[in-house]
């Protein structure tokens, strides 16, 4: 793609502004969090144009924001954050994304890397067999007729009541894994048909399971509050979303909103920014459906957590109690929330869109469970398959500047076709082995597209949010076993 034609104004080493007069129709300026070295790549991908387009949305407050893992998306850039006043602003499904509540969770264990190294092949095989993954994957959890509605209404709580996981898992899940004001009836029967066979499955693309070991602790006290206490401590990540159901919901409501825009007299430079006023029927129905899809994703991650705990204990020959396997936290990174923020001295209720962005609440925030009240909210940042992932904590600065948001992971840098040309699936496997990572995947071709070279450097992304003060580094982990869909 040609270089973005606009100019970014430097505010400081981590903040770059797109002035409001860049494009006629922008209601607010844009603000991209990035370091100077990241700019050439950001400018080459045209994502700043999307940041500018989002600024057209009615009711937008503050800035049209982008996190350092910014890259081109549908309407909103990936890494985009935008907040609209609920009273006169809009909600936009493109600001959430197709994979509603794609998110990640991490479990802590009482084991170290040395404990698991003798069993990495068995762990890889055990996890690969325990959680269906890959295309068309189905068959994990059988639902009774109409049970899908319970999944959509209750999310993680449905899963725990079915015996998948522990009651305390709900405390350490964003929204307790159950958004209120979900309405399964707003989810089309087609979406329900796609979702019913997929509960407890991993899906494909960039979804994965990962067994990792802590290799650096930046803030020991905060880490300890999160249950992270030793270098070498084994942690387990689960990353996936709402599967076919979420996609169908996004499709259904994008279609509705494209039609609704004329009715509400909204005109935007990109059809994929299709939106409707938050309190309109279309807006309310979308939010109710989106919350249902989000609940589905949490239920899904909860079911997978159960399967992972069982597989881990079986392979290691220990009990769950000895293994630990506590859920540290679960965060969504494609979602819209109704939250209050102080804007120009007044408290306003806003519809905050986080698309490829994570919530980053500070210590003391009422939404956090008691155990994290003094530490702040854990933020999980998965990097690419071969290098590292981070655990961060939310800050007050995030509340002031980014509507309580931060990055979500390493953004893609290379197209899938280019990634495949660069390395074959076999070469990626060999490369992973050299790095000490055991990989299991259903598709070598899909694996090639997920090669580390295809992603931006997560370290630079995290350094920016840390440097900007919107999150703080708590710990870093390195992968040992990766299961990819």
């Amino acid at each position, binding site marked *: 793609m040609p270089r973005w034609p606009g100019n970014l104004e430097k505010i400081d080493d981590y903040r770059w502004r797109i002035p409001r007069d860049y494009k006629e129709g922008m209601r607010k300026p844009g603000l991209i969090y990035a370091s100077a070295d990241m700019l050439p790549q950001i400018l080459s*991908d045209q994502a700043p144009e999307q940041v500018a387009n989002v600024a057209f949305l009615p009711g937008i407050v503050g800035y049209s924001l982008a996190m350092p893992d910014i*890259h*081109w*998306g*549908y*309407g909103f850039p*990936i890494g985009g954050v935008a907040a609209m006043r609920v009273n006169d602003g809009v909600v936009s499904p493109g600001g959430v994304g*197709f*994979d509603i509540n794609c998110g990640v969770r991490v479990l802590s264990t009482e084991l170290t890397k040395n404990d698991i190294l003798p069993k990495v092949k068995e762990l890889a095989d055990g996890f690969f067999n325990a959680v269906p993954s*890959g*295309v*068309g994957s*189905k068959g994990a959890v059988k639902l009774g007729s109409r049970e899908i509605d319970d999944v959509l209404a209750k999310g993680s709580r449905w899963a725990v009541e079915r015996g998948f996981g522990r009651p305390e898992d709900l405390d350490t899940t964003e929204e307790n894994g159950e958004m209120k004001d979900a309405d399964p009836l707003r989810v089309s029967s*087609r979406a329900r*048909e*796609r979702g019913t*066979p*997929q509960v407890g499955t991993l*899906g*494909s*693309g960039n979804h994965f399971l990962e067994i990792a070991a802590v290799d650096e602790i930046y803030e020991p006290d905060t880490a300890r509050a999160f249950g992270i206490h030793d270098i070498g401590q084994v942690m387990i990540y689960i990353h996936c979303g709402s599967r*076919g159901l979420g*996609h*169908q919901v*996004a*499709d259904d409501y*994008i*279609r509705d909103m*494209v*039609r609704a825009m004329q009715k509400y007299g909204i005109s935007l430079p990109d*059809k*994929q920014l299709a939106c409707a006023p938050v309190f309109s029927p279309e807006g309310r129905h979308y939010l109710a459906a989106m919350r249902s899809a989000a609940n589905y994703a949490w239920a899904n991650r909860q079911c997978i957590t159960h399967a992972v705990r069982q597989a881990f204990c079986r392979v290691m020959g220990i009990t769950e109690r000895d293994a630990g396997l506590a859920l540290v936290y679960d965060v969504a990174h494609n979602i819209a929330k109704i939250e209050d923020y102080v804007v120009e001295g007044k408290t306003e209720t806003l519809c905050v869109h986080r698309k490829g962005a994570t919530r980053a609440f500070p210590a003391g925030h009422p939404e956090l469970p008691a155990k994290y009240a003094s530490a702040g909210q854990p933020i999980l940042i998965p990097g690419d398959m071969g290098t590292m992932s981070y655990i961060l904590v939310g800050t007050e600065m995030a509340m002031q500047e980014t509507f309580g948001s931060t990055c979500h992971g390493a953004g*893609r*840098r*290379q*197209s*899938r*076709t*280019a990634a495949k040309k660069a390395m074959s699936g076999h070469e990626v496997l060999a490369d992973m082995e050299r790095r000490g990572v055991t990989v299991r995947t*259903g*598709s070598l*071709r*899909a694996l090639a*597209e997920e090669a580390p070279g295809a992603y931006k450097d997560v370290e630079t992304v995290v350094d920016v949010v840390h440097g900007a003060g919107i999150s703080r580094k708590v710990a870093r982990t390195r992968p040992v076993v990766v299961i990819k869909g």
Partner: protein
Amino acid sequence: MRVDYKYEYIEHTADIGLKASGNTLAGAYAATAAGMFSIMIEPETVKETEERRICVHADDPESLLFEWLNELLYYVDAQSLIFSRFDVTELSDTDLVAVCHGEVYDPGRHEMKNLVKSATYHLMEVDRKENRIQVIFDV
């Protein structure tokens, strides 16, 4: 029955796109569908043991393309069907009817390369004069 559909892939950072064409616009819609399935599976490995008649309706040709492709993806998810041949029997600016031929996905014979999650409107073009279509998919 083998049909040679005309399509080529286009590069896109996070996803995959297609440029497809046909002798008629209906042919272009068919080629786009074939191209989409080829992203997921090798077309030569798909037998024709199942068929589905699909009808979609939308407000304009672009939305119609969106509906057509996403309708096919619904069958992939809900019925594990993969299609390799498409007879678009009716096409207007707002309606498309097609008979689609394929079979149920068999993990033993079919290697799934990439799961296409959705068609998108990004850079979408339906050129009614040249019978050419461009579309980007979310994978």
